[in-house]
């Protein structure tokens, strides 16, 4: 069942109860979890947070922690599976599901109160209840009186036919509904809505939601138009928060703002050349795998008016003039190389006494922390949560940024070597290549 009122039917129900929070390993889930945690902290709702990575993980986590727990909140997991069937919970346990994975399992949708879905996506074409479920009364037919036997037989045949037709229809509906999996609105944006309804919209909340929105955009989980629509309430809240901050406070407190920024991953924490070389949106168009690719990149930098020496050193230590003119130079130089528009409106976090941070960089850092090469996933999850904090020294972010750079470099190296060694197979609608295990 879907929840009507996100505040009264979800948040207020949790007040004063112990909550089990099961969170999936992805950027959106980490952000949503951070928002919920902050809310729970404000209201002294004691919770247990366990990150889960799959259905078996979900099961063990639930089995280990279900004692005395009446409310379970699932973030980005559990929506697409029949929870009651898989977890076998007690009658009075209630599951709140905040999942951006679609399509939602039909049994969850039509559960009578045990599974409650927090957000209803209008894009989902959920089949009607009557088309899917039907009371089976065929076998309980009463023996009809003798004279009407013939007509009864006909009626029974008619019913069977109708049932057969219905079954076919159900099958087609279910097939259409479940054949593609896709993503819905980011969970963190829904969590932001809860925070806003509870009047607890802080900078940390806005920042988490902004990172989640950026994640869905950067990972192409949603079409760009949808991303824009998803972020619309976020834009509103950011603008409202900016209005509330007094002018003399702007340099003393952390704040989120929307600004035009280059969509190069991690360029603030890297060098300009490095970021250009590894940007997923630009590098392939510069054909860096080809022999002339490096020259083309240098040409682009020359067109932008950036000396190689400057472009190769850390962005933070680049000439201030160059840094200021970077966006316009990049925009001006891009069309010549048939690159897409390299700038877009992004969320930036301005912290006192620290360089601004872009939501896009945060996405890559969190992903790198969760899928770090040496840190186990559960520990990486804790680091990812720590990286989302807006104030103070952020060691986790540094760790994440370094790991993200390594990951991007490895991906670029692999892609380039596959392309240059002609390892890419073209097979009809799919292109594929084989990654050798190291």
């Amino acid at each position, binding site marked *: 069942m879907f929840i009507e009122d996100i505040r009264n039917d979800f948040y207020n129900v949790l007040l004063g109860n*112990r909550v089990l929070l099961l969170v999936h390993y992805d950027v959106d889930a980490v952000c949503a979890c951070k928002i919920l*945690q902050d809310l*729970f*902290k404000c209201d*002294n*709702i*004691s*919770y*247990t*947070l*366990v*990150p889960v990575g799959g259905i078996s993980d979900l099961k063990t986590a639930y089995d*280990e*922690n279900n*004692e*005395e727990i009446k409310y379970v909140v699932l973030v980005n997991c559990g929506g697409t599976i029949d929870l009651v069937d898989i977890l076998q919970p007690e009658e009075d346990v209630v599951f709140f599901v905040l999942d951006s994975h679609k399509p939602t399992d039909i049994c969850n949708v039509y559960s009578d109160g045990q599974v409650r879905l927090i957000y209803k996506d209008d894009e989902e074409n959920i089949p009607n209840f009557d088309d899917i479920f039907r009371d089976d009364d065929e076998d309980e037919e009463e023996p009809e009186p003798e004279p009407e036997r013939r007509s009864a037989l006909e009626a029974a045949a008619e019913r069977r036919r109708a049932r057969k037709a219905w079954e076919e229809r159900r099958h087609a509906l279910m097939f259409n509904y479940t054949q593609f999996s896709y993503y819905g609105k980011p969970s963190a944006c829904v969590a932001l809505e809860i925070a806003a309804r509870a009047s607890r919209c802080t900078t940390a909340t806005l920042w988490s939601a902004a990172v989640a929105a950026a994640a869905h955009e950067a990972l192409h989980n949603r079409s760009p138009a949808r991303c824009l629509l998803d972020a619309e309430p976020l834009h509103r809240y950011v603008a409202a928060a900016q209005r509330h901050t007094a002018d003399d406070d702007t340099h003393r407190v952390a704040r989120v703002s929307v600004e035009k920024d280059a969509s190069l991953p991690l360029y603030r924490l890297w060098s300009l050349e490095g970021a250009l070389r590894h940007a997923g949106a630009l590098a392939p168009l510069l054909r860096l795998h080809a022999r002339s690719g490096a020259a083309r990149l240098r040409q682009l930098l020359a067109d932008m008016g950036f000396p190689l020496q400057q472009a190769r050193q850390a962005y933070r230590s680049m000439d201030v003039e160059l840094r200021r003119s970077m966006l316009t130079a990049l925009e001006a130089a891009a069309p010549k190389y048939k690159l897409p528009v390299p700038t877009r409106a992004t969320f930036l976090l301005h912290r006192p006494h620290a360089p601004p941070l872009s939501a896009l960089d945060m996405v890559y850092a969190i992903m790198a922390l969760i899928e770090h090469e040496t840190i*186990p996933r*559960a*520990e990486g*999850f*804790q680091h990812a*949560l*720590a990286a989302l904090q807006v104030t103070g020294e952020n060691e986790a972010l540094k760790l994440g940024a370094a790991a993200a750079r390594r990951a991007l470099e490895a991906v670029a190296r692999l892609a380039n070597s596959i392309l240059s060694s002609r390892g890419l197979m073209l097979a009809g609608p799919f292109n594929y290549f084989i990654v050798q295990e190291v």
Partner: protein
Amino acid sequence: MFGEKVIELLKEAERNSDTIDLYNDEKIRQIIQEMHILFKMNMDDANATTENKSLWTTVQVRHSALERNKRCLLAYLYNRMNKIKTLRWEFGSVLPPDVRELLSDSEYEWFSKYSTNLASYMRSLGEDIGYSGIDLTENLRPPKSLYIEVLCVTDYGKLELEDGDVIMLKKNSRHYLPTEECQTLIRQGVLKQII
């Protein structure tokens, strides 16, 4: 000179005003002896010369010295008593043996009485509203928050909270728990506080 010893005693106590030091039995005995001598001399002089007023000044001076000694001793004891009172709040009803050695017998007796008084008072608190007492020594300063966020560092197993809830402490799970329940586990290194 009269009253010299008592000043020494006070100065000694003054040197470390934050901590309590050994009950100076020897010195106090000496001071009391001095007071006895003074008193005896005064008695003799007063008895001997009821008419001879020339000795009255001497008696007066001795008496002042006597009074002063008494006052200083009382100050010394009172000061120690206050320190012992804070010991109760800091250490609880059982003193560590090294602190116990610093107290005199009568001081220790006072401590036990104070301790019992305090305990019975704390038990009586909130009786009318159904609580079975409040431990006042727990939070001497108001806590910043009743709950803290902790990260479990090792696989510990089950933990039963005061309200009967059972929590599974497994590595890398986060919990938001009442501060008092976690403190011992944090000290043991099972949990880590997240700020």
